[in-house]
């Protein structure tokens, strides 16, 4: 009787799993189909053929890719995005991590006020900063420069908050052991806390990377010269101004600018999801 009940149970379980597979499958098609079409369209020579499946092989080719690689600044935009994002991530990791550690583990006058300031600035929506950041970058003479794209974004209150929550969970015994070995506050931070903070730092790095890699609003006003564009600004320019009426060429531009970064995300997705869920539970 037990086994009969169990079989019925697992049969029902399998049926439920079937439902999950079908549902997830349909959803996955809705998610993936636009990307598949994009890649397909990028190889179609004539815009008249992008919305149909053509069996004449001569209608496909790499013409759009060669045109973009020789006639546009996509390579430069890649370099700009890599450089800008790398420096922003590096700065955030250094500054936010240090501040988060001090807020979590050191006692100093004004700590409570500083934490309040971090929480308050976390709530500020970025559109309040559009105008003043722009006018400051203008008056610093940083329009169309890497400095303008990087320096205002080197810190992030959310990163500080994340690292504070991370460090606050560390056992006090670790600090004490370091102190007994003769380390000062900075030594404990460098030799005890940092080597054990890999997970928190990785989570922070992923957030800061995703936010800045795809960001469009600020770069779209801070740079106007094509050779200073980041990838999102470049894609916008290609698809909205340069080739508005050239679907296939636009899609080749989308593929060249997004597929490599999507591959990186696919490789990192386990870590990304881990960081996301960790941040939300924490």
């Amino acid at each position, binding site marked *: 009787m037990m086994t009969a009940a169990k079989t019925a149970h697992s049969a029902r379980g399998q049926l439920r799993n079937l439902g999950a597979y079908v549902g997830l499958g349909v959803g996955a098609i809705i*998610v993936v189909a636009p*990307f598949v079409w994009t890649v397909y369209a990028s190889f179609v020579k004539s815009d008249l053929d992008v919305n149909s499946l053509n069996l004449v092989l001569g209608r496909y080719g790499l013409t759009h890719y060669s045109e973009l690689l020789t006639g546009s600044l996509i390579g430069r935009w890649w370099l700009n995005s890599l450089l800008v994002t790398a420096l922003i991530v590096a700065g955030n990791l250094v500054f936010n991590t240090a501040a988060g550690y001090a807020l979590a583990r050191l006692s100093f006058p004004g700590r409570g006020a500083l934490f309040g300031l971090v929480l308050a600035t976390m709530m500020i929506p970025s559109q309040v900063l559009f105008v003043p950041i722009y006018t400051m970058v203008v008056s610093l003479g940083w329009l169309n420069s890497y400095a303008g794209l990087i320096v205002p974004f080197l810190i992030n209150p959310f990163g500080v908050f994340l690292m504070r929550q991370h460090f606050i969970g560390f056992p006090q015994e670790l600090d004490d052991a370091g102190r007994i070995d003769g380390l000062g506050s900075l030594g404990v931070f460098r030799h005890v806390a940092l080597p054990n903070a890999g997970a928190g730092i990785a989570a922070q790095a992923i957030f800061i990377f995703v936010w800045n890699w795809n960001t469009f609003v600020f770069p779209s006003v801070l740079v106007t010269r094509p050779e200073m564009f980041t990838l999102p600004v470049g894609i916008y320019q290609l*698809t909205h101004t340069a080739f508005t009426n050239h679907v296939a060429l636009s899609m080749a531009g989308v593929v060249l600018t997004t597929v490599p970064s999507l591959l990186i995300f696919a490789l990192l997705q386990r870590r990304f999801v881990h960081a996301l869920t960790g941040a939300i539970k924490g």
Partner: protein
Amino acid sequence: MAAVPRSRRRARRRDLGAAALLVGPFLALLGVFTVYPMVRSTLYSFSDFSALRPSAAQWVGLEQFRKVLSDPTFRRAIANTILLMVITVPTQTFLAVLVGNALNARIRLRSFFRAVYFLPYVTAPVAVGAIMLSLFGPNGIVTSLVHTLAGTPQTAWYAITPQAFALVAIVMVWTQTGFFAVIVLAGLQSIPGDIYEAADLDGAGWWTKLTRITLPLLRPTVLLVLVMGVIVGLQAFDQPYVLSTTGGALPGSPDGSTLTMVMYVYTQSFRYFHMGEASAAAYVVMAIILVFALLQGALQRRAGETR
């Protein structure tokens, strides 16, 4: 007894130098690029500052607030944004709960599916917009499909109302559902398994377990997804901007039907260089977000009391 405060005082002195070194750079950058800009934008919002003639700025009191609040375009943007939120937030939350539950079932390929559902969220919104503009364009596959099935006109969705607004809502839901589904999945996985085992022993069926265990315990996660959705929705910019400006069209085209509050701030600043109006509008947006955040806080407290 007296040793405790003294050692604490010594710890404070010992930490002070280190704290200054660790906090200093962050604090300096925060001051220069967040706090000081806030002060500046507050001043802008009370002046008629324009980037075209920066030296002629004058104090005008609450004039800019009065101006933007009575501007029909800004009112339209507020209405659009709230409508967009009302449509997208429940839709994406419902879909995220469905997808999250499906991902939590005992299935193979879970991490494959999770990666797939995450793709739209990590793709640059500008790229997503370009793809969708083609699919919903005059000869786009989706335009033709819906034309055949539902008899809608064979015209680019971004060029006519109310299709343009629907397109923005569809793209936002398409982008965000996977992200929220992963949050739901994390919430589901934090429900202890032995609750389900106990329910199994009591002979509880699938429906009973869903309505009596899963959904009640998932309530904080669903609330989080709703709140994040509201905040993201109130600040909608990238998708409507990219979808409405193809071929150099005015942001919010056609006819202001897809203009959001943040797009209004952006166009006032960088198209018309009305920095004063833009700053006042930005603070109105911030106030609206704050109202929703407070509402949500009150709601959460009440949910906590009734539990």
